[in-house]
Structures are given as C-alpha cells and as structure tokens.
C-alpha cells in the first residue's frame, strides 16, 4: 500500500513545483502549501505503516502494546505542521503586503535592479 501513497506524495510535490513556477504570486503560496503537505505526508510515511492502532498506553497498563503505530513520525509531523502553519500565515500576509506596495501579483514584473 506504500506505492499508492508514494505516488500521492509525488503528485503533491509535482503540483507544488508546477505552481511555484507560475508567475502569479498567489500560486506561489499555493505551491508552498502543496510542498508542505507533501513533506508532512512523506515524514509520516517514513514510519512503518504496518501498525495502525493509535499510540496510546491503554488504561490499566504500563506499557503500550506492540501493535501501536510508530509515535515518533507523528510527533515530528505535528511539529512541522505547526511550524508550517506559522510560516504560511506569515507568507500569506507577506504577499498581501507585497501586492499592496508593488501593485501587482505578477512576479515577472519585478526584476531586481
């Protein structure tokens, strides 16, 4: 079952790349969000997918069962999700201000001087 999710990741990255290569700055942000979705899924997949029960220690037990999913990738994804959120929020406001001060959403109109 990995192969289908691997393809999903590939498609998400491809979509991200394609959007990042567009001239519109809005698509640029969309592309970045795609990138971070793809990366989160990838990190999540890095743990093995063979075990599927949520990683909790059952009431009355002291040790989690061996069948629980690898909790570490989950924690990593959580962290990167939150970080991604912060950066996306900032980037969104940045493009808004960018548009406000330059009056365009077309990236090609902005050559460096």
């Amino acid at each position, binding site marked *: 079952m990995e192969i289908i999710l691997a393809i999903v990741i590939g498609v998400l990255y491809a979509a991200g790349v394609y959007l990042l290569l567009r001239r519109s700055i809005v698509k640029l942000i969309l592309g970045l969000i795609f990138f971070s979705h793809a990366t989160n899924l990838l990190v999540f997949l890095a743990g093995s997918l063979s075990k599927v029960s*949520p990683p*909790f220690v059952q009431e009355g037990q002291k040790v989690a069962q061996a069948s629980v999913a690898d909790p570490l990738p989950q924690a990593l994804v*959580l962290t990167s999700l*939150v970080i991604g959120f*912060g950066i996306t*929020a900032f980037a969104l*406001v940045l493009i*808004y201000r960018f548009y406000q001060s330059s009056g365009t959403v077309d990236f090609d109109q902005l050559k460096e001087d």
Partner: protein
Amino acid sequence: MSNPYSNIFRIAATKLRPLLFILSLIVLYRGHQQPGGGFIGGLMAASAYILYALAFNSAEARRKLPLSTSALLGTGLAVILVSGLLSVLAGEPFMTGMWTTLHLPFGQELHLGTPVLFDAGVYLAVIGVLLTIMFDIIDIE
C-alpha cells in the same frame, strides 16, 4: 456587518466564548493522556476570541482578553522556560520532568508535572500567537 445574520452570530459568539474556553482547558489538561494538548487547546481557546472578533470587532475582543496578546506570548514563553528550568534548580539536566501528586478533597488525585506545565505554556503562547495574527488581519478590513 449589518445583515440579519450578524445578530445571531454575535449572540452565538458571546455564548460560545466561555464554553470553548472551558473546553480548551479540558483538552489541555487531558492532553497528556488522551488526544489533545497545548496546541489543540490553545487553538480552541483562541477560536473563541476569534469568533468574537469576527462577530464584533477586534478591539472589542481585545478588551475581553485578560492579558494583552503580547503579554500572552510572553507569559506562554516564560511558563515554558520555567517548566524547563525547574529541574535545573534541582540540579537535574534542563527540561527533566519533575512530578508531584496533589491530594485533592474527595479522594481525587491530581498528577502534576513540569511537562504539563510546559504544555500549559504552549497553550498560552498559541493563544497569543493566533490572536495576534487574526486580530491584525481582521483589522485590515
């Protein structure tokens, strides 16, 4: 925002605010044992105020806050830092978990530790963060 829905929205926002707030505290506390935790809790608490700000305006919502947004950020960060430094005072490495059990009346036991405090810091900081971002963006209008 003078459409007929706005009144309903305002009432809902007002009523939901304490509810969401209490819920968020529960989510925060349970986080160590059940799904939840500081980030999710903080998000819920913040959404209470965000709804309020959308229904009224951000200035009104700010007034309802016990602390300013930047003080929330600062407090959150300070709590995180303190939870890590407590173990240093005890001569243990930074961020070592320290646990104690409080005996409440009615036979209840409250298991408290620095990691929980840490999560509370995250909770506060997340509220501060989300409110700063959302209030400012709402102010654009």
